[in-house]
């Protein structure tokens, strides 16, 4: 997994609430057995007409936001399915951080497995960040994981909370499975005990 430390880049404003996983990556693109290449179909049905032409009004089609690395979104981003294709598509497009007032649980977890930083901010801060994102390509936002701050293009800085374990893994690009394998003895012990207490499992 790619590390996440600090990022200064363009932020795309998507104020719509309840942006769901079917919007992020529609189901016809889940028929892949790979993780890569999904960026071309990120937000497919909002981004392209049925015959594949770009929909000009969609934010990521606008010249200012074609190279966005951050999305500032409305409430409850990523609700719906467990498809990890959603963060895969965001990452493949180049999005490394999403900022919202809230995220759906499974989507939030999936982001951390893929080097994407989802940031929860209070509504009044999201409003300020949304306004900053709306300024276009010359307004760069900075997301600093180490100091746990987001800084607007005009220098206003806002702190965010993050679980220390998730932060550690993201900053160092650590593989969860490798970490868990180090606890194999604990898993062995658990299985031995459970085989006694709940043998039918």
């Amino acid at each position, binding site marked *: 997994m790619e590390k996440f430390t600090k990022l200064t880049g363009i932020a795309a404003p998507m104020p*719509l609430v309840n942006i*769901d996983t079917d919007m992020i990556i529609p189901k016809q693109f889940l*028929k892949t057995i*790979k993780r890569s290449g999904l960026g071309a179909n990120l937000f497919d*049905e909002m981004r392209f007409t049925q015959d594949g032409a770009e929909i000009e009004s969609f934010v990521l089609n606008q010249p200012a936001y074609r190279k966005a690395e951050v999305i500032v979104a409305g409430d*409850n981003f990523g609700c719906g399915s467990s498809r990890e294709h959603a963060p895969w598509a965001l990452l493949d497009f180049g999005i490394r951080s999403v900022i919202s007032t809230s995220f759906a649980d499974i989507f939030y977890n999936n982001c951390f497995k893929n080097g994407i930083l989802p940031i929860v901010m209070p509504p009044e801060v999201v409003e300020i960040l949304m306004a900053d994102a709306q300024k276009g390509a010359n307004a760069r936002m900075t997301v600093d994981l180490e100091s746990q701050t987001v800084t607007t293009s005009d220098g206003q800085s806002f702190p965010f909370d993050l679980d*220390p374990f998730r932060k550690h893994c993201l900053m160092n690009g650590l593989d969860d*499975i490798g970490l868990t394998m180090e606890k194999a003895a604990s898993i062995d012990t658990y299985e031995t005990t459970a085989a006694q207490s709940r043998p*039918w499992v």
Partner: protein
Amino acid sequence: MSPRTLYDKIWDDHVVHQADDGTCLLYIDRHLVHEVTSPQAFEGLRMTGRTVRAPEKTIAVPDHNVPTTLDRANAATMTEDSRIQVEALDKNAKDFGIHYYPVSDVRQGIVHIVGPEQGWTLPGMTVVCGDSHTATHGAFGALAHGIGTSEVEHVLATQTLIQKKSKNLKVEITGSLRPGVTAKDITLSVIGETGTGGGTGYVIEYCGQAIRELSMEGRMTVCNMAIEGGARAGLIAPDEKTFAYCMGRPHAPKGAAWEAAMAYWKTLFTDEGAHFDKVITIKGEDIAPVVTWGTSPEDVLPITGTVPAASDFKGGKVEAAQRSLDYMGLTPGMKLTDIKIDTVFIGSCTNGRIEDLRAAAAILKGKKKKDGLRAMVVPGSGLVRAQAEEEGLAQIFIDAGFEWRLAGCSMCLAMNPDQLAPGERCAATSNRNFEGRQGRGGRTHLLSPAMAAAAAITGHLTDVRELMSETV
């Protein structure tokens, strides 16, 4: 020990390791696998030379992509990419030695219907699957939730998940439901009340008389949509109905093991005085048959209502509601019962079980679907299909003009050929009404199987109670 909730008890019994910051390694008793969210996970195992730690606790079945037409044994019924995914699951199940129900097996079906049906899902277990509707299994008093593909790989390799504990939310449905009101109306009404983000950070325990009065099938419908309310999982404490459902299933314990399991299962309830972080109470008698009007499962109204205006909402929901109204092609103020439909879909992990088919057939018996309307029943598993044929339900559907299909996820998410065309409007017993969910430009109204049957007869959204009074 201080009083604990049901969730607390199951959690405590599965902690393998707890770090100082509260991050836990949680043991997973059952891992369900399907073809769409697993290929990259198995590939990850191969690339790192890892194996499946507990193949005997891992169960796979293809469901999302599979055609449901009777000719599906013919490979040409599947697109190439779908076929590759199903073949990858065939191969992965064989290579890694996990339990498998291939498309040709009568026990094949939607993973969340097969698990309970085969006795893999039992009270007090932890159950995960790379699918958000894993919440379904909570109906047994099992802690069950969806995971992403990286976590699928993690569970395959280690039989554990890295987790932090959620908060406890109690949803109590008091009293009894009125006639014509079902488990689907309960679960949609709860989401209407909490919103799709209202359960975020929580595990829900559903309780109260109306929940106790539900069958296991109904309880699975309620828990299935806990995820649509944003919750990590939904739970219902096991009782005699749960035990009766499990008894004798192929993978349920037998003999002395059954007795030992029962002794444990009877401890699975929330202790008197246990702490809930939030409580929601709804009177069962206040719940009406409901439908969704918009493109979020929280857009729920009683069938007697009218389409709202965007200005009825606040904040970011104003824009979202306007977008929904435009997408759905609806005018504020129109009666919900005036909404005409083109398609009826009965099936899915939410409502594809035998009781759902019985409820729909009870309304359809001796009646015909509206001319020109497309209607299909997709049983949740091959065994549900066989039982429905034995009970004569299949014939009722066929006589009413419905297509009688083979088992799969089908038009719930339209990954197989069962899809809506742009602008088509569907009364669906599934779980999501998102834009494009049932096909690009397709419009979905979520409702119960009985309500779907009523809509099939009249050709528009209909209060099922009106058709019921005809037969009384």
